[in-house]
């Protein structure tokens, strides 16, 4: 065996202090990350519209970052067909806050760490292996803490993201490691050891049937007792990766961590 494809993509991480407390500065820093540090680099077809690198299968997504006001950042995510997957926001407050940028050729996850709490905006593609990449069209996901009217509706967390599937973009479930009637995922060995797993997402193909859409690139599921920002070492092959626990809200006893080294 070799490393899972979902851990074979590029990844970058950087934290910025947004001293102005203005999301406009966050957009500047995200631009630096995506256009300058990322390799392969994202492109910016128009102001604030960032397009992920197109892979060999022709897959990509794009995100539009918009400053709504000083504290409100909006991210619109579109799939490869130009269909809007979601439009989500965060409000980081007007005091200085920290911006955390997790990025790579197939993922972008932004976090605002402020005195008022934690917020996130997310977008990316799924690894569809062992199916061929692009074998089905449901490979773009998005999310964010608040709706486009600034409501914390709970639609974006560890188990939920938005996709342009049968369910019309409503939240789907990361169900791969559920255990039937138990509401928690299986992330502990019987001896107490923690288990880390890839983040596999299901998509609705009808009103009652979900099938596996793919895995988020460079994400792992971890136990919910690991606080946001915790760094963990996870063996992903004959090497270990360093992952940081994100502020994606907990669901089913699980949190998510994204690779930083």
């Amino acid at each position, binding site marked *: *065996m*070799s490393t899972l494809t979902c851990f074979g993509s590029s990844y970058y991480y950087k934290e910025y202090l947004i001293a102005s407390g203005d999301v406009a500065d966050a957009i500047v820093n995200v631009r630096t990350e995506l256009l300058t540090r990322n390799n392969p680099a994202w492109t910016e077809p128009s102001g604030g519209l960032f397009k992920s690198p197109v892979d060999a299968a022709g897959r990509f997504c794009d995100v539009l970052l918009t400053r709504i006001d000083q504290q409100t950042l909006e991210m619109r995510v579109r799939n490869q067909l130009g269909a809007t997957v979601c439009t989500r926001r965060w409000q980081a407050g007007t005091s200085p806050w920290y911006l955390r940028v997790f990025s790579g050729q197939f993922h972008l996850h932004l976090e605002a760490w402020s005195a008022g709490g934690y917020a996130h905006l997310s977008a990316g593609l799924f690894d569809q292996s062992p199916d061929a990449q692009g074998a089905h069209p449901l490979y773009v996901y998005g999310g964010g803490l608040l709706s486009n009217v600034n409501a914390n509706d709970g639609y974006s967390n560890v188990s939920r993201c938005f996709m342009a599937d049968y369910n019309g973009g409503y939240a789907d479930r990361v169900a791969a490691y*559920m*255990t039937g009637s138990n509401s928690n995922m299986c992330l502990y060995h019987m001896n107490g050891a923690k288990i880390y797993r890839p983040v596999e997402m299901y998509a609705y193909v009808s009103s009652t049937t979900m099938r596996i859409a793919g895995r988020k690139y460079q994400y792992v599921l971890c*136990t919910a007792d690991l606080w946001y920002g915790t760094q963990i070492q996870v063996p992903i092959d004959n090497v270990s990766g360093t992952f940081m626990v994100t502020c994606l809200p907990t669901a089913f006893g699980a949190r998510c961590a994204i690779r930083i080294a």
Partner: protein
Amino acid sequence: MAVPAFWATPFSYTELLAVTDVATAIAGIHTALIALGWTDDSGVGTGPWKTPARSDGAFFKIALTRTSATRLSFMMYDQAGINVSAGTAYCMDVEAAGNPFQIFAGTMHLALNSARPAQHESAWFSMMDQTPEPLTFPQAYYRMYSGPRVGSSFYNYGWNFTYCLYPGGTAYQQRQVAPLRMPGTTSTWQRRTVALTSLFSPAEFADSGNTPPMFLGRIPQAIVVDDTTGIVAGAEVIVPIDAGVNATFKVLGLASYYQQRLAFRKS
């Protein structure tokens, strides 16, 4: 990476044609087990049969009894000599007119399938693989299927309905445990991708009655298949288990459990 430990244990597959007397099945099981390094306590082919000791010394024993020409009874004992099914002798039948009988044997498992035309009758016994955790901690872990019948009463429980000893426990309990990736009870999360590729998972289990659910281990050389694809008892599926390595698994006759069936490795 190499092939995971639970795909690397020695195994064999035997099919006996038109078994009319379970003595034939016992003889076939004896041959299969001895070839894999099990030992026969009786020395004359009547058992109980003991698995090869694992690296930490763990093993289990199986006792088989010919209750009648058409009824095979069995008991499982852990390495401490405790009767796993708390004294209940489960059994399986063959047709008086004969039916195929399949034996899936391994150094850490044994599964039996009596392919009766109207209804297969199956059973399985296993020491669970818990890698990558150390084998010796917290304990060797055994499972036995609660079926298919007690005397003439045919239960055909879901194949997750088993006897097992939980950490800290002193007696085996009859418990239902959940296979990982189990579909929910209100929605169907199929073991297929959106592109309709089937997903065959190792037969991994969690203690769904505990929060958080703990990972209990895997049955070596076994997988879970999604029967919404039309897979039925006796079907064979070819599954890649490593780069360039395919394995063939055969579905047991146990009842479907939330659209899932259990299959053991044949080759």
